[in-house]
C-alpha cells in the first residue's frame, strides 16, 4: 500500500519567514493533494498536482511535484499567523480513496 511521509512533523516560524513542508511517497504519485486543517475544522483544499514537474501557486503558497512524481513540497512565502494549522498531503490510492500523511503542524509567531 502507498505510504506518505511528511516532514517536518511540526514547525515554528516567526511571522514573515519562508518555510517548506515536504511530502514523500513510497510509490509514484498519480494525484497529490494538499489540504490545510485548523483545530475543530474540516480539511480545506489547497491544491492538486498531477503532472511531473508541475507547480501551482495560490496567494503566498506554492506547491510542486517533482519530475519522478514521488515527492511534493509546499512552500509558504512571508508567513502570517493566518497560515497556522496542520498541513496534510494526500494521494490517490486507487478506487478514489485518499491516503494521507501524518500532517505537519505549523505555528507562526507574530
Amino acid at each position, binding site marked *: 500500500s502507498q505510504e506518505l511521509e511528511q516532514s517536518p512533523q511540526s514547525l515554528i516560524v516567526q511571522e514573515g519567514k519562508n518555510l517548506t513542508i515536504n511530502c514523500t511517497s513510497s510509490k509514484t504519485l498519480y494525484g497529490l493533494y494538499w489540504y490545510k486543517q485548523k483545530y475543530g*475544522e474540516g*480539511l480545506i483544499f489547497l491544491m492538486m498536482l*498531477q503532472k511531473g514537474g508541475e507547480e501551482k501557486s495560490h496567494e503566498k503558497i506554492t506547491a510542486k511535484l517533482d519530475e519522478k512524481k514521488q515527492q511534493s513540497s509546499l512552500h509558504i512565502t512571508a508567513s502570517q499567523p493566518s497560515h497556522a494549522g496542520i498541513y496534510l498531503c494526500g494521494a490517490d490510492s486507487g478506487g478514489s480513496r485518499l*491516503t*494521507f500523511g501524518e500532517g505537519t503542524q505549523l505555528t507562526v509567531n507574530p
Partner: protein
Amino acid sequence: GAGVSQSPSNKVTEKGKDVELRCDPISGHTALYWYRQSLGQGLEFLIYFQGNSAPDKSGLPSDRFSAERTGGSVSTLTIQRTQQEDSAVYLCASSLWRRGLGETQYFGPGTRLLVL
C-alpha cells in the same frame, strides 16, 4: 455554494450505545467518502460511495460500522455498540467523479465523537 455539512458537530456517548453520524454532500457530487481521524492514527479511509455502484467498504474497521447513502445524496454512518477506541473525528467528503480521473475531495467540518 454550500459545502459539505455534517451533524452533529459533537457527540458524547456511553460505551455500548449506538450512534448515527450524518453527512450532506455538495449538491451534484456523486461520490461520497467517510474518513476517521484519531490521535496516533492519522486520517484513515472508511468507506466510499459512487452513484448506484456497490460501496467500497474495505476501510471499515469492524462489523460494528456501517454506512448507507439514500437517494444518492445524504449518507449516514452508524456505529453500533460503541467502544472507547471509536473516539475520533469522523470526516465526510464529496467529489465529482469521472472514470479514471482524480477529482478533488471537499471535506465537511467533521463530527467529534467521544465514547465514555
